[in-house]
C-alpha cells in the first residue's frame, strides 16, 4: 500500500492545474468482438502515447483494427482490457453522463461523411456543441461566427448543408469540431469523400488549425497526402502497432529520392 501513495499524489498533482504533455495514453488495449460463435480479436494489445499538439495519422488496411483503436482513443468505445487515458482521465471510470461531457468538451469530431445536421444552417451546426455545453446562446453564436470566418465560410452562415459543396460542408464540420475548444480533434477519413484538390485544402486547413489552436489532431486515414503534414504516422496491422514513423524521418527519405 505504501508504495502506491506517492504515485497517487503525483497523479492528483498532474490532474489539477497544468496537464501532462500526453493527451492520450493507451496501454495494452485489447478488444474482442463476438461474431456469432466466433471471437474476433480486433485489438491485440496496443499501446500508444500521443503528445499535446501532435498531428497523428493512423493508417492501416480495413480490418486491421484501425477503426476500433480510433474509437477507443476517441471515447466512443471501451476496451476489454488495458487502459485508455484521455487528458489523464481513465475512460473506464466514467459513467454515461461523464462520457457525454468528455465528448462535448474535450474531443471534437470530424467525419468522412461530414455529418452536419441537415435541418440546421451552417451557423446552427457550429453552435450545436456549445448548446450541449450549456453555453449562453449569444456567446455560442459569437464563437460559431468566429470559427466560420476562420474556415472562410463567414459568408455562408445561413446556408443549409444541402446548399454547400462537399469541401464547404467539411469546413463547417471542422469549425463545429472546434466549437468547445477541445484538446483533441478526431478526424475519421476526413478527405474520404472529397476530390484530390479539396482534400489537400482540408488537410492543410487541419494542419493550420493544429498549429494555431494547438489542438491535437488524430486522423484515421487511407490518404497518403496526410503523410506530408503528420508529425507521426502510426501503422496498425492485425490488431497491433506495426510501425510508427516520424515525419522527420520520412522527409529525409523523400528528400533523398528527389535528389537522385
Amino acid at each position: 500500500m505504501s508504495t502506491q501513495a506517492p504515485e497517487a499524489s503525483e497523479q492528483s498533482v498532474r490532474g489539477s492545474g497544468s496537464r501532462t504533455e500526453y493527451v492520450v495514453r493507451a496501454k495494452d488495449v485489447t478488444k474482442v468482438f463476438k461474431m456469432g460463435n466466433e471471437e474476433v480479436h480486433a485489438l491485440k494489445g496496443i499501446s500508444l502515447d500521443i503528445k499535446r499538439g501532435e498531428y497523428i495519422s493512423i493508417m492501416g488496411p480495413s480490418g486491421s483494427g484501425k477503426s476500433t483503436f480510433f474509437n477507443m482513443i476517441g471515447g466512443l468505445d471501451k476496451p476489454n482490457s488495458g487502459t485508455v487515458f484521455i487528458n489523464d482521465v481513465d475512460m473506464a471510470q466514467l459513467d454515461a453522463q461523464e462520457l457525454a461531457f468528455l465528448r462535448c468538451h474535450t474531443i471534437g469530431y470530424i467525419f468522412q461523411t461530414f455529418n452536419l445536421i441537415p435541418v440546421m444552417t451552417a451557423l446552427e451546426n457550429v453552435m450545436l456543441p456549445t448548446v450541449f455545453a450549456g453555453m449562453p446562446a449569444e456567446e455560442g453564436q459569437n464563437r460559431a461566427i468566429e470559427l466560420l470566418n476562420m474556415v472562410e465560410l463567414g459568408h455562408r452562415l445561413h446556408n443549409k448543408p444541402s446548399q454547400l459543396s462537399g469541401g464547404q460542408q467539411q469546413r463547417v464540420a471542422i469549425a463545429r469540431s472546434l466549437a468547445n475548444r477541445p484538446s483533441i480533434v478526431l478526424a475519421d477519413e476526413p478527405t474520404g469523400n472529397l476530390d484530390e484538390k479539396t482534400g489537400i485544402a482540408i488537410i492543410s486547413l487541419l494542419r493550420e488549425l493544429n498549429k494555431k489552436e494547438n489542438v491535437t489532431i488524430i486522423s484515421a486515414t487511407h490518404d497518403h497526402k496526410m503523410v506530408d503534414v503528420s508529425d507521426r504516422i502510426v501503422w496498425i496491422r492485425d490488431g497491433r502497432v506495426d510501425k510508427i514513423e516520424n515525419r522527420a524521418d520520412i522527409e529525409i527519405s523523400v528528400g533523398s529520392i528527389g535528389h537522385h
Partner: protein
Amino acid sequence: MSANNLAHIAADRGIKKQVALPLSKAVEFAWKSVRIRFARSLITAGGIFLGIAFLASILLDKSVKGADIEPSEAARLNWLVALSLAVCVVGITNSMLMSVSERFREIGTMKCLGALSQFIVKIFMIEAIAMGAIASGFGWAVGTLLMILTKIVIGVPKTAPPGTTWHGSLDIGDLFGLPFGSFWVCVGLGTLLTAIATYIPARQAANIPPAAALRTDV
C-alpha cells in the same frame, strides 16, 4: 468507496456530468425535425388521423342512436374502433422505427457532440405528442363532419322519428363539464396512443452509440 474516489479524481480533472438541456431546446429540435421531414410526418400522422376520424364518427353515430342501439351492435362498433386504433399504433411504431434508422448517423453525431440519451428520447416523444395531438384534432373534425353529413344525406333524423329508432341527438356531448366531449376524448386518446407507439422507437434511438456517427454504410 473506490468508485467514489475515482469519480472525485475525474472531477479534479475537469470532467463533470453532462448537463441536461431544458425542455425548450428539445421542443426546438423536434419542431425543426418535423418541419424538414414534413411529408414523412404527414404520412406518420395520417395513421392516427384516420383512426381518430373513425373513432369520432362512431362516437357521434352512437350518440345519435342513443338508447336504441342494440347491445350487440354497440359491442361490434367498439371492437371495430379498438381494432382500427391498434392498427394505427402498429403503423406509427413502424413509421417511427424507420425514422430512427434513417436518422441513425444523425443521432450518433448528436451523441458525439454531447447529447445525452434522455435528450434524444425527449426529441422523439415531443415530436410524437405534437403530431398525435394535431392529427387527432383534425381526425375528430373530419370524422364528426362526415358522420353529420352522412346522417343528413341518408336523413336518419327525418326518416326515423325520435321514439322509434332514434333517441339521441347530434350532440357531441361533454366530458367532465367540458363542452365538445368527443373532441377531448379523441385528442386525448390519439395523443396517448401516438406517445405509446413512439416509446419503443424513441428508446431505440436513445441507445444508438455515438460511434454510429462514423458508419458510412447507412
